[in-house]
């Protein structure tokens, strides 16, 4: 469901190792009741974490100041009113750093920070630098919403994986929570995706391409199997059909909004990136709107009384990636991981 780095940001654990907090009197820069917070930020392998943002927020929330680290990893946040601060560093792909109760009561206070690996993504290409590089490549073009010959919005194009705008408030039933907790505790060893099967009903990305015609919208992904999913625009759900990994997807137009209706999912597919299951009652409604040339908004409602107390609605947004191209992803080419996976 959630894009990888957004999930990391939302759920990163607080880390608090190798942080040194000591008040050191300084002479020249003291200015009454204000002080400076300074130190060095190192990445998990001990190298300077260049150009990351360090934020100091007063305990009462009244003061928030930020500084960007230099290439040496050094940062300086000056002019802080004396007080107690919550210091944070958030880097997608790494554990979020948070140190509460940092007391700035002198001209200069030192806080060195050592970032830690995220527990899931630490491999080249899927590491924090890779995530940051993807973010740096984002430059959605401006312009009006492109339209097809019949005047409908045209969603065609390559898009970055969506970010969650409003996560909503899913109310999972206890059994569904237990299944998800067990799957996560087992390191997702039994995920269909590790066997090169489709990952999850609600997952997208890192890149997604839409190819649209009057009859069908085809979604192509760059790291899932089989890599494509058809959404039919000119038919309704069949009365009888065998279940499908991505479900049967049909769509209709509601003004400029494309309303996708998905049902009839195979038992084996997982619902979302948090490893929740689904029941045979799963029904997903996705409302796509291309706000302009460079942006797409999607409101998703998951209705499954077998796993949710009530329908869950959340929203996501995507940016166009006009310079990206999706290369083939033949997962079974060299899926050598399976024998090495350990569930505890």
């Amino acid at each position, binding site marked *: 469901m959630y894009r990888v780095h957004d999930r990391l940001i939302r759920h990163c654990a607080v880390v608090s190792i190798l942080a040194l907090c000591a008040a050191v009197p300084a002479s020249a820069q003291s200015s009454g009741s204000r002080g400076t917070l300074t130190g060095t930020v190192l990445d998990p392998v001990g190298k300077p974490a260049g150009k990351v943002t360090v934020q100091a927020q007063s305990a009462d929330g009244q003061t928030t100041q930020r500084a960007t680290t230099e290439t040496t990893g050094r940062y300086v946040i000056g002019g802080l009113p004396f007080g107690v601060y919550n210091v944070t560093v958030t880097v997608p792909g790494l554990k979020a750093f948070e140190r509460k109760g940092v007391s700035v009561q002198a001209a200069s206070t030192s806080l060195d920070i050592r970032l830690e690996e995220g527990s899931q993504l630490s*491999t080249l290409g*899927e590491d*924090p630098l890779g995530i940051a590089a993807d973010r740096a490549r984002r430059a959605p073009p401006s312009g009006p919403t492109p339209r097809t010959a019949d005047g409908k919005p045209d969603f065609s194009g390559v898009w970055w994986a969506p970010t969650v705008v409003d996560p909503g408030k899913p109310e999972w039933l206890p059994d569904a929570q237990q299944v998800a907790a067990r799957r996560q505790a087992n390191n997702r060893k039994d995920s269909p*995706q590790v066997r090169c099967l489709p990952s999850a009903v609600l997952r997208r990305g890192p890149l997604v391409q839409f190819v649209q015609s009057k009859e069908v919208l085809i979604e192509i992904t760059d790291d899932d199997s089989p890599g494509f999913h058809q959404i039919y625009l000119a038919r309704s759900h069949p009365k009888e059909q065998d279940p499908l990994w991505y479900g049967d997807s049909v769509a209709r137009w509601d003004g400029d909004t494309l309303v996708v209706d998905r049902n009839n999912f195979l038992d084996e597919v997982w619902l979302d990136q948090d490893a929740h299951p689904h029941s045979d009652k799963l029904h997903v409604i996705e409302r796509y709107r291309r706000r302009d040339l460079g942006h797409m908004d999607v409101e998703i409602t998951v209705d499954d009384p077998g796993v949710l107390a009530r329908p869950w609605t959340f929203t996501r947004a995507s940016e166009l990636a006009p310079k990206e191209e999706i*290369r083939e992803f033949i997962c079974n080419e060299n899926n050598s991981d399976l024998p090495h996976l350990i569930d505890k």
Partner: protein
Amino acid sequence: MRNHWSTAAMVVALCVGAHAPAWAHHSFAAEFDVNKPVTLMGTVTKLAWTNPHAHIYMDVKDASGKAVPWDLELGSPNALIRRGWSGRTLKAGDVITVSGYLAKDGSHLANARSVTLSDGRTVFAGSSLDAGSAQ
């Protein structure tokens, strides 16, 4: 970098926090041990530009001088290509140093977190985390 092969394993105790449920092809924690960082120096035998992961296969000399084959896992080619890398970034015979984390099952498998050539140049690496500061 010295012009000989050696194996150096550096194990640094890191605090293990809650698992962030990010999702690549498989969970990092299912295969690799964040508590077992390792640095390996050896000679590339093959760069496999394959899905779902690219792999560096290389020979690393053990303490007795015997060449031991190792498997170093990278991200997917789709992700690596966006960094400007290709299946020709490394070739057989390159002497490299790889830092990463050991597989939990004790096999000669690790993930690759950084790769450095014998002349000191770093390959398969980005420049900074600058775009990652979510503010």
